[in-house]
């Protein structure tokens, strides 16, 4: 953690809302992105992100600086996502891919044909990701989308590195098997 961030956090703990605004701007993409991928839609991602930052603000004093701030933030993000899922009591099997389609629509129109295939692939991967079990999806989001290290994941989810390893492996196998059943031809080999 650098000195500037430590100073920023100290101000936030004192209740400085301006400083907290800066903190939000710095980390909102991380939180929002994670939640968007886990929850599967913008609306819920926004609501829960807001909840995460309010929780952060209220519990700022409990952050002891032993771990990285971003790790702590991820932990709260994941907990809020779990709470939200519990509350909604839905498995979040996203049937409509509206969000995903919208997201890729501009790429379809502006890129040459070679890219279309790539876009189509990402779309499918994302769709199948949403069909995974919550725990598996969570670990894939943290590892492959947010790019956290195994050590970080083990801290965020409070599980051992061995468990992280095996869970990632299982989730990836699951995702691969699901994608092999889709019309997209993964089998044909390299481009």
């Amino acid at each position: 953690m650098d000195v500037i961030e430590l100073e920023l956090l100290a101000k936030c703990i004192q209740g400085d809302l301006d400083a907290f605004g800066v903190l939000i701007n710095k980390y909102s993409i991380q939180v929002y992105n994670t939640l968007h991928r886990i929850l599967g839609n913008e609306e819920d991602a926004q609501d829960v992100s807001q909840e995460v930052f309010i929780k952060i603000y209220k519990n700022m004093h409990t952050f002891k600086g032993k771990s990285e701030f971003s790790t702590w933030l991820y932990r709260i993000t994941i907990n809020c996502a779990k709470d939200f899922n519990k509350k909604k009591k839905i498995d979040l099997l996203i049937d409509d891919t509206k969000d995903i389609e919208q997201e890729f629509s501009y790429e379809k129109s502006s890129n040459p044909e070679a890219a279309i295939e790539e876009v189509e692939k990402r779309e499918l991967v994302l769709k199948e990701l949403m069909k995974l079990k919550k725990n598996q999806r969570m670990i894939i989001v943290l590892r492959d989308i947010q790019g956290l290290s195994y050590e970080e994941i083990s801290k965020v989810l409070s599980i051992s590195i061995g468990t992280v390893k095996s869970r990632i492996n299982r989730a990836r196998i699951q995702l691969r098997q699901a994608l092999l059943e889709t019309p997209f031809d993964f089998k044909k080999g390299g481009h």
Partner: protein
Amino acid sequence: MDCKRCNELISDNIDNKISNWDKEEMDKHLKSCRKCSNNFRITKEIVDSLNQLEEVKPPQDFSANVIKEIKTGKGNKKMSFKRFLSYAAVLVCGVFVTAIVLQWPFSKNDYYSSDTMAMQEESAYRTMGDLNGAEITEDKLDSDLGITDGGEMSYNNVFDRDKIIYHGDINLDVKDSEKASKDIRDYIEAQGGFIENSYSNKSDENRNEPYTNHSYIVFRVPASKFNQTMEKLKEFGEETSTNINSTNVSTQYRDIESEKQSLEIQEDRLLNYLKEAKKVEDMITIESELNRVRTNLNRLNTELTNYDRLIDYSNITVNLRESKTLTTTIKSPFGQLIENISKGFISSINLLLQSIAFIIVLTFRLIPFLVILLPIAWVIKKYVLKR
């Protein structure tokens, strides 16, 4: 290396979490096994796609919204209200279920409700002067005795209807106290009663007070005509208050009677001894003893006659108050209004207190159920909701 082991290591390989030895072994296997090499390639492709995903950005005003939310404290309240609602719903359901299972506690069988019923009956008869009230008191005394004497005596023995002393008080507003008191005396005499005490006071005519002359009469009427007389007295003026009370003296009466009987037996014996006595000294001793017994007997007889008199003739006190502004003509509704308000207020408070007591009792009644229900709820929460 077999395919199974290879499959396990694919993920580790992609993330470079694999030992050099394993990596070499795996490369060898991938060259020879088409299936595994395909799996490896596809997994790598998937991971790459995920790595290359576009970042989604939160809306522009996200930070401002969060700050606003923190300032107003709105977000927090929303959640706690929801939580409160769910707790409230559970509580209400619990109350209803328990009420059905354990019967509604405001039924007659329950502790506090029966008390209030009795209180209501009592106060009703006091305020309204309803003569049926006397009967309620009798019943009450009856049950009281039944409790204190335990199950030793049978119902009929405990309650001797004849050994009850009635006492009535009645306050009346009248136009002319002299005329009213004369009418009352006439009526009492016609009933076979008699005046015990009477008093009247005439105040200065010139002083302008709402109540000027007043008088009171204490009289006795035969107990059989007590209720009838009390009812009739209300017709002589405007009743302001009535009070009837009764004392059950059956026990005392019985005690005196039995004491009297034993003294009589003693007296008979002493008389026999006296007849057979030969010595003068003996005679004197017996005589003095006989004297003591007879004195006691006389005392008891007097007590019994006193009781009999009190029982046979009920005591009624009539207070007469001469009122210049007698309200028989125009009845103001406001007096009753205030009374009604206070009645309503009191009954509401009573209901509230009863409810609180009910909830407290219910909480304790529920504890045994909670012991069973809480683990079940916990299991449901843990395994069903989490899925």
